[in-house]
């Protein structure tokens, strides 16, 4: 903690740049998935930034606990980042978009796509993408369990 602001050190400036740039792509795919026109969606730069800051603190704590012998699996890192991306108030839908009943899944789909594209780097079956998004959006989810789910997806039997 410094000056009242939590600071991590696990996400380098370059890592953050790629995560932020990729988030916009993920949000575009999420809107397409629920058939919502892009003009109806906006994202809070502040909340997105703060979500990454929070994930950074989580990751820095895990790195310091496990180093130098143990690492953190890509799935666990994805779980932490996806959880934070789902919890901060990032995505906002305008009044005309409120008639689309599936908009509640957009931010969670964007969170899943964001970590899938850059960290998991593997295909997730369609039904499981929707189930994880629903779980994140409407039921209980946490970083640890999400991480285990993502690890299982990465390490699925060939």
């Amino acid at each position: 903690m410094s000056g009242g602001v939590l600071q991590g050190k696990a996400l380098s400036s370059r890592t953050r740049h790629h995560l932020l740039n990729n988030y916009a792509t993920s949000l575009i795919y999420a809107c397409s998935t629920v058939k919502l026109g892009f003009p109806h969606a906006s994202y809070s730069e502040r909340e997105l930034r703060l979500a990454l800051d929070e994930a950074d603190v989580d990751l820095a704590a895990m790195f310091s606990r496990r180093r130098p012998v143990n690492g953190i699996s890509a799935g666990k890192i994805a779980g932490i980042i996806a959880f934070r991306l789902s919890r901060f108030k990032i995505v906002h839908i305008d009044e005309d978009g409120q008639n689309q009943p599936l908009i509640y899944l957009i931010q969670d789909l964007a969170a899943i796509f964001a970590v899938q594209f850059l960290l998991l780097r593997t295909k997730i079956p369609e039904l499981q993408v929707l189930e994880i998004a629903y779980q994140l959006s409407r039921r209980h989810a946490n970083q640890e369990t999400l991480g285990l789910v993502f690890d299982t997806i990465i390490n699925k039997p060939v």
Partner: protein
Amino acid sequence: MPNLALIANDPVERAKSVERMNGPLYSREKINFNHGIRTPEELEALVCQEPFIPDNLEAIGSLLEKITAE
């Protein structure tokens, strides 16, 4: 594992018990999965590759549409 009656009535046994617990006899189990990313630099190397875009994104939308229509 000392019996409580012994500890309650014998300060020497109690002191021995405290010494055992406070010493190296019992130590935290270390679970060593020994996998994964160890440094921010390794994380950066993974994240900064070309994004993986799966080929079933449209199928997710179609399935969602089908599920909601049912």
